[in-house]
């Protein structure tokens, strides 16, 4: 059975090809990091996997079905996506925002069910944002705001979570907070999480599987200890680096680096 995969994906913006005939498979139950230089197609790939970007060729397979065979709401029940720089009206409260995550389960004419309230509450607790439930999102700090949006995607109760650079614009402690949250969601709620990350050391430390993109194709994929090598860094990022082992986290660590 194919859990989640892209087959022969090609995506164009106008005449410009972003992703070229890509084949990629995502192992169930893991945290999968998408890494690669700017313009390598990470966000575009994520957009295609969530059904947002139109495919020129190929198909996205989700649980043995093509993605577009699902209705929009059914797809949202299986697959939640948090794009880069999410925006919502600043005056709505965290609770209302998280409630949007229940849209895929709600029918027209009906009001919110008890199940929706429970799911919203649970999502806020899991994302550790429940103390701000009645705060307008404009009043939140960057890290709190990001956790509120993550809570919204958790309310979708989907097995797969796509996160596009959820740590951008956050300082180091808040970056770590989000990444640890991602790991908890994976280990305890058993979600498969595909995450675009810029910081390579964080990718090596928090992901079970790394997908390295280079000019719209996949250059490397595998466990961090296998693919996070000086060879890969030179090949994909054009940096000369020394990779050692992080003695505490037991993962590869980029030590010294410079452009080639």
């Amino acid at each position: 059975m194919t859990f989640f995969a892209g087959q022969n994906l090609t995506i164009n913006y106008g005449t410009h090809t972003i992703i070229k005939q890509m084949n990629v498979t995502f192992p169930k139950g893991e945290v999968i990091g998408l890494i690669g230089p700017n313009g390598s197609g990470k966000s575009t790939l994520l957009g295609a996997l969530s059904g947002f970007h139109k495919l020129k060729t190929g198909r996205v397979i989700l649980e043995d079905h093509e993605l577009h065979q699902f209705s929009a709401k059914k797809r949202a029940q299986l697959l939640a996506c948090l794009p880069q720089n999410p925006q919502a009206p600043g005056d709505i409260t965290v609770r209302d925002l998280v409630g949007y995550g229940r849209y895929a389960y709600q029918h027209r004419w009906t009001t919110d069910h008890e199940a929706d309230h429970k799911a919203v509450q649970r999502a806020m607790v899991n994302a550790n944002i429940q103390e701000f439930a009645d705060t307008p999102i404009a009043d939140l700090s960057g890290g709190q705001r990001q956790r509120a949006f993550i809570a919204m995607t958790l309310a979708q109760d989907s097995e797969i979570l796509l996160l596009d650079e959820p740590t951008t614009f956050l300082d180091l402690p808040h970056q770590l907070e989000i990444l640890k949250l991602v790991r908890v969601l994976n280990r305890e709620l058993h979600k498969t999480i595909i995450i675009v990350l810029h910081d390579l050391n964080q990718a090596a430390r928090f992901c079970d599987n790394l997908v390295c993109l280079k000019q719209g194709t996949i250059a490397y994929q595998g466990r961090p200890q296998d693919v996070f090598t000086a060879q890969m860094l030179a090949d994909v990022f054009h940096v000369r680096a020394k990779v050692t082992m992080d003695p505490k986290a037991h993962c590869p660590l980029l030590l010294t680096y410079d452009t080639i």
Partner: protein
Amino acid sequence: MRKNRNYFLISLCILGLLLFMNSLLLGVHNYALSDFFASQSQNFAIIWQLRLPRVLAAAIVGALLALAGKLLQTVSNNPIADPSLLGINSGANLALICGTILGVPFTLFWRVSLAFLGAFLTFLIVFLLSMTRRGLSPTRLILSGTIFSGFLNGIAYGISILTKSSQRFRNFLVGGFSGVDCKQMWLLLILLLIILGLTIYFARDITIIGLNDQLSQGLGSRIVLIRSVAVIIVVLATSGSVAVGGNIAFIGLGIPHLVHYFDKRDFKHVYLEIMCFGSVFLMFCDLLARLLARPFELPLGGLSAILGGGFLIWYVYRQSEAVVA
């Protein structure tokens, strides 16, 4: 908190009813409550056949324009969107003027069809101008709408000056409800029912597309479908309003912001409040227009723009430190 908000809607409704009664009774002549039921008197006929359609038309147009404004602001993610900024009013206007010049019969059916056609064509052009490779650009929508509506207004003024018919179109250009009859009232009532039905049915979907595109798509929203529904509601509401009441400024832009001052929740929670507020505001303007310079009438469009403008300046002043996030 929730209770307070319900009180807001209820008090708006009570205020609306009071205004409605007063609007029926007050005007060039004032009537007494007993005239409502004195079926033999002339006053009875005036109240039910002249005043009622007029007041009801003002109430409905107020509700429709306010809703249209809020819908556009929600679907374009732009707090200053307004049917008139997007040229929808101007398009309906110009179509009406051209139709009249070309000798199309000035019946209700033709007025409404023309207004709808003009509104829809204009919106289509503005919409196409604002499409980019990455979908609809809210900034382009406002820019092209503003420019195109200026262009259409210029043509409309030009035509009415060249054909020396500006007096006949006075009602379109300044807006007002004098001379509204029962047929127009029924038309507006039916339109209101359709629009209210559509809005209630799609309220949750419209709320979701108030987020940015990729986010609402990820939540399971069919953006193109819902945005089209919202646009159809806006075009219907605006063209119906223009066909009966002419150009009435401010309501679409200002009323949603005023309601936002009292209730900051999202679309699905506030659209009824916005419609009620729009009704109350336009009935109030219409009453003032009849009362302030008796026995003459003031132009309603101008009055609502002055009143609303004043309101908005006060609102912006009060909000000066708050920023839309």
